[in-house]
């Protein structure tokens, strides 16, 4: 199976003197569903930043879809992120002054590659996804008018549009009750599975791990965190 993510001897610190990430090796296959967990401060958000190219790693190597992120300029990483990544944020991070349709189609406006992978027009693709997520009747509504559950599905549709190869979900269920959390996970895993999207799902809630193919404990993987907590 092709590797979607390959990390080799990755170190990263916000200051030179103090690393927060030290990972010897990690690889994720294409289409794999990963549950990434760990306590606060173990570097989950930092790792997501490194994987998505928002943060630049030195030293070490991160290959995404066989592309070395370290060899890219910041602008190239922006383009790469737009072309290949979908994101669902913890608090959804929808643009409040755009309606549902505009929010969902936004990634296609920034990436021709994603646009080319869309079936039909951006609007028809957005409607198709929205209907699958049960929000097809809300396309012209403004985001602040929606319930939390509806906003979450809009965020999921925005992340999935244009069939990104990698979908990152940063604690998207932390604000939901159990019922809405389970429904959301069902939808997410279903849509990601259909599109064969690699899924990195971050959460504190270990009970969710059973829904994924593989669970990674970042606290154990990150040597720097182990050292700082005396687990080494």
């Amino acid at each position, binding site marked *: 199976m092709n590797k979607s993510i390959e990390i080799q001897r990755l170190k990263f610190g916000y200051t030179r003197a103090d690393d927060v990430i030290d990972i010897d090796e990690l690889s994720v296959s294409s289409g794999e569903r990963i549950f990434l967990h760990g306590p606060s401060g173990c570097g989950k958000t930092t790792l*997501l*930043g490194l994987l998505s190219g928002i943060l630049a790693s030195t030293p070490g190597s991160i290959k995404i879809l066989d592309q070395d992120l370290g060899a890219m300029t*910041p*602008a190239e990483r922006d383009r790469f992120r737009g072309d290949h990544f979908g994101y669902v944020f913890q608090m959804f991070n929808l643009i409040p002054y755009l309606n549902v349709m505009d929010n969902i189609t936004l*990634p296609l406006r*920034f*990436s021709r590659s*994603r646009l080319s992978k869309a079936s039909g027009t951006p609007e028809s693709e957005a409607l198709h996804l929205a209907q699958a997520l049960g929000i097809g009747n809300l396309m012209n509504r403004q985001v602040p008018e929606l319930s939390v559950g509806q906003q979450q599905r809009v965020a999921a549709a925005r992340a999935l549009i244009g069939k990104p190869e990698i979908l990152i979900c940063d604690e998207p269920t932390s604000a939901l009750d159990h019922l809405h959390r389970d429904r959301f996970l069902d939808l997410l895993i279903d849509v990601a599975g259909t599109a064969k999207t690699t899924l990195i799902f971050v959460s504190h809630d270990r009970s969710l791990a059973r829904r994924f193919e593989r669970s990674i404990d970042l606290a154990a993987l990150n040597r720097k965190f182990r050292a700082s907590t005396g687990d080494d």
Partner: protein
Amino acid sequence: MRTIIHLALRSIMNRRVTSALTILAIALSMSLLLIVERLRTGAREGFTGVISQTDIIAGARSSPIQLLLSSVFQIGSASNNVTPETWEHFRNHPAVAWTIPIAMGDSHKGFRVVATNGDFFAHYHYQRDHRLEFSSGKALPDDHSVVVGARVARELGYTAGTKIILAHGLAAESFVKHENHPFFVSGILKATGTPFDRSLFISLPAMAQMHDADGGGGGGAVAEHQHSLDEHDERDEHDEHDHLPGLSAIFIGTKARTDALALQREIQTYEAEPMTAALPGLTLAQLWSALSYAEEALRAVSMLVIVVGLLSMIVALYNSLNERRREMAILRALGARPWMITAILLVEAGLLTGIAVATSIALTYAALAGATGLITANFGISLPITSLSGEEWVRLGLMFTIGLAMAALPAWRAYRNALVDGLTIRI
């Protein structure tokens, strides 16, 4: 590009109140700049346009500036008088189309009295082609009539028919009053923005009679002097000159502008009496140049307005764009390129400043429409409501460009913040 404009527009619409205040702040600065510049040019044009279509001002030997100050601006007094015979000589000069004799020396409650004839109302022009107009009444039908300037009428509350007594000399409070020769207001001039708004006009024979009456110990029936100017003009020249005072100045219009220089030379070398001939346009320019500190002060105000305007513009843009930091992080996470982030903010700044330019033009014209009459009446500064000049468009364009250039700073900072905030941003 459509996406960028769409996002910028929706963002502005989403922050309607903030955007409106930003636009208002920028528009007010721009409008203030336009108005101050119009005041500056209006003051200059008002000054240099105080007398126009008059080719030469002749008077007794002095400096051209002194002659202009005393005869037009009514500052100081003429060094000497010109005889009526000299006026007659140049009045009949083949190069001369018309003359306006001016005699001064009396006043009324601090306002100067100008003795002249009907030609003053026919030929005196200001601001290029403006003629004197009456708001009520008419010119001088007889030698007991007085025409008053707009400001005199307003400040003293005079209307047609008001009886007034003139005073000898130019002091505000004179003890010698020409009580034997009362005058009645026959007409009130419309405001011109010239020093003549603060003048009273009587006929030349009236001035002579007024002084004759006082010199003869007063008395003399008023009715005896109530002959009209027309009747007076019908007398023979010798008789007329016997009843005319010495003249402070003579405004001369030539038949052809090209004759003015030769006529000026001829007047300056006139053998019958020593004279000065001033070219009003040239002398006014010299005088304005000597008073250039006033224009420089207004120019300095303009510069300050620009600086304050630009500062308020950058503060407003910086604040409004800084609010968008969160959005920038989201857009970057969704794949927006650096140039897209910068372009969105610059388009937004461009839209804000563009709307501000249009608003400033509207505000300027509204202010001009509302205040031009008051300013002209009170300060003598003409602010015509004309279309924007090329220079004004350049100024607005410059402000727009500088506004955009200044928006580059918050745009860059927003991009940098977006990069730093990365995925940690929360909403």
